């Protein structure tokens, strides 16, 4: 009961209530959160591997163990429908399902909701030349290499969001640590540190990415490191200023006057008070990092192919303007994601605003 009342009066809970009362932001938050959590279930929802196979009275779980085609005695039917050759290599469960259905032998395959892999081309199964327009099988069509656009968008969502969350988180932590040290220590450390940051921020980020990607090639991890190294500066400036301001305030003086240690001053008193304005930056920084990754992918300096990425799809749309599904769906996905996150950011900013709520009701 006591703990409950403590929670109810805490500033954080009040802010959460205020955020919740801003419907647009709250629902955007719920949607993004659900989508992101769902994206961790993608291997069960969007996957070329089947969930369950029953073959000759035994059950197989291809999600956990990879099976060869001969394990299920899979064969390929040629066009004249009479000769069938055994299939080698990995089992293809979509074809296996058709085969079992036509064999009528009591075997069956339970496929995932969208039985396509984002990196798998479907040239052998589909007629005509890719890109294929949307159909019942391929909701958003296929791209110019015959890969399912929906699968690529879904996996791309997870990658984009994870990527920008990580970059935002790490660069914020870096910025807070560096800015905090500069602001708290002050003096010559600050003078020299800020000059270094100024020089560092003038380095042409895009060229460095291009040089790195041509020299050693890029990976998910390397991209995160490089982008983090080039995006912590603004936060550090901000935190440095906040530290300067907060450490001169009387409550810090009062804490020092009762003998509080330096670490206590920093972590207990100054940091929580300087963090508040920073938190409102987070959603906008996430938006920025998603856009950045899409831009780099679009230019071809982003994540290495065949990683499912939105920028690469948008690039395809650019080269295939007459194939409308390659233009509309990636752009729509990007637009909606950014819009929802901006709504969240708006709501957070409003919830943290100590003054009365004016708009967004």
């Amino acid at each position, binding site marked *: 009961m006591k703990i409950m*009342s*403590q929670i109810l*009066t805490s*500033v954080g809970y009040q802010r959460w209530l205020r955020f919740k009362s801003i419907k647009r932001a709250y629902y955007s938050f719920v949607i993004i959160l659900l989508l992101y959590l769902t994206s961790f279930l993608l291997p069960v929802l969007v996957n070329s591997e089947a969930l369950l196979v029953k073959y000759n009275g035994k059950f197989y779980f291809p999600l956990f163990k990879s099976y060869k085609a001969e394990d299920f005695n899979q064969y390929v039917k040629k066009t004249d429908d009479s000769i069938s050759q055994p299939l080698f290599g990995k089992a293809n469960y979509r074809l296996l399902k058709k085969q079992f259905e036509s064999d009528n032998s009591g075997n069956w395959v339970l496929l995932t909701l969208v039985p396509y892999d984002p990196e798998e081309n479907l040239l052998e199964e589909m007629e005509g030349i890719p890109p294929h327009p949307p159909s019942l099988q391929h909701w958003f069509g296929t791209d110019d290499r015959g890969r399912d656009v929906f699968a690529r968008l879904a996996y791309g969502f997870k990658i984009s969001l994870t990527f920008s969350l990580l970059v935002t988180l790490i660069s914020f932590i870096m910025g807070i640590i560096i800015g905090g040290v500069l602001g708290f220590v002050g*003096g010559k450390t600050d*003078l020299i540190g800020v000059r270094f940051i100024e020089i560092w921020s003038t380095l042409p980020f895009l060229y460095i990415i291009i040089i790195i990607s041509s020299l050693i090639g890029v990976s998910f991890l390397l991209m995160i490191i490089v982008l983090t190294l080039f995006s912590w500066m603004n936060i550090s400036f901000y935190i440095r200023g906040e530290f300067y301001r907060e450490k*001169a*305030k*009387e*409550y810090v*003086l*009062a*804490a*020092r*006057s*009762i*003998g*509080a*240690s330096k670490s*206590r001053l920093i972590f*207990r*008193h100054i940091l*929580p*008070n300087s963090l508040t304005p920073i938190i409102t930056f987070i959603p906008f920084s996430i938006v920025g990092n998603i856009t950045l990754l899409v831009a780099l992918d679009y230019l071809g300096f982003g994540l290495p192919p065949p990683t499912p990425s939105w920028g690469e799809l948008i690039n395809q749309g650019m080269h295939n303007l007459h194939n409308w599904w390659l233009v509309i769906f990636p752009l729509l996905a990007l637009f909606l994601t950014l819009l929802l996150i901006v709504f969240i950011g708006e709501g957070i900013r409003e919830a943290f605003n100590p003054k009365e709520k004016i708009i967004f009701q």
Partner: protein
Amino acid sequence: MMSFLLEIKNLTVSIQNENFYISKGSNNLSTNVIDNLSLDIRAGEIYGLVGESGSGKTLLALSIMRLLSEPFIKINSGEIFLNGTDILKLSYENLRKIRGNKISIIFQEPSSSLNPVLKIGTQLLEAISPDTNTNQDKKEYAISLLKKVGVPDAESRMNYYPHQLSGGMKQRVMIAMAIARKPSLIIADEPTTALDVTIQAEILDLLRNLHSEQSESSILFITHNLAIVNQICDTVSVIYGGEIMETAPRDEFFSNPLHPYTQGLLNSLPDINKSKRIKLSPIKGTVPPLGKFPPGCKFADRCEKAVSICNKIKPENKELQKNHFVKCHLY
């Protein structure tokens, strides 16, 4: 001979000018804000320090705590002895042991002296000695402190945030934090300035009661309000331009002020007994900006009784009667 709890000897504090970084090393770029100041506080007394804005009262308080924002404001020379140990020579760790334990300070602005994101209770617990008690004991002690300083409903107030309390309540909490470790010296830096008059009286009563409970501890009461000084102080000093002009026991101070500045201060008070028609008689002129004081007596250019020597030569600190010191060429 009476022992002194706090002895300040020839303290000089200076402010660095703006282009401190560029021309570091040359001394003429700093201005003395506290100038060769000496002051003694006996154990158990309430010592009043009166002065106008900008006379260096708060800087003196911060110097004693060593809380000046160095390197821009720093102590150039002098000694501050607390029970015989020189505070200015202490290492950072030893200084931390003195702060809160031996000396504590109550600031002028209670609203900004409490951390807005922490609960009252958390901040009070912080002020209570970290190594003695268990958490439960600490909490009970914190509640008893709150009760002592007159915060009603202390248990639930522990969970309040500063913005949920009024100014007077916040100042009470600050006082509770200041007395938490029973320090031998409490510096009260204009503790009532930010409060309205009725609350002022309550806070003064509280301080007086707390002092009578712990009679061995001293209070350095910094204010610009002579009425408050008259109410609670034992000894009074007047500070002008970073120098102590006159020091006297309270009754002596009000009945027989000797320094022209003190006289001017007392004359400029409105008197309820006099007729309403009489105009207030303020001291002429204003406090000069830092560094623009006359080279001799700092008050010389505003003093009605000034003679030619006043502008050139600094007056000595003379003990005219027992415990009554004056810095003036007239005596």
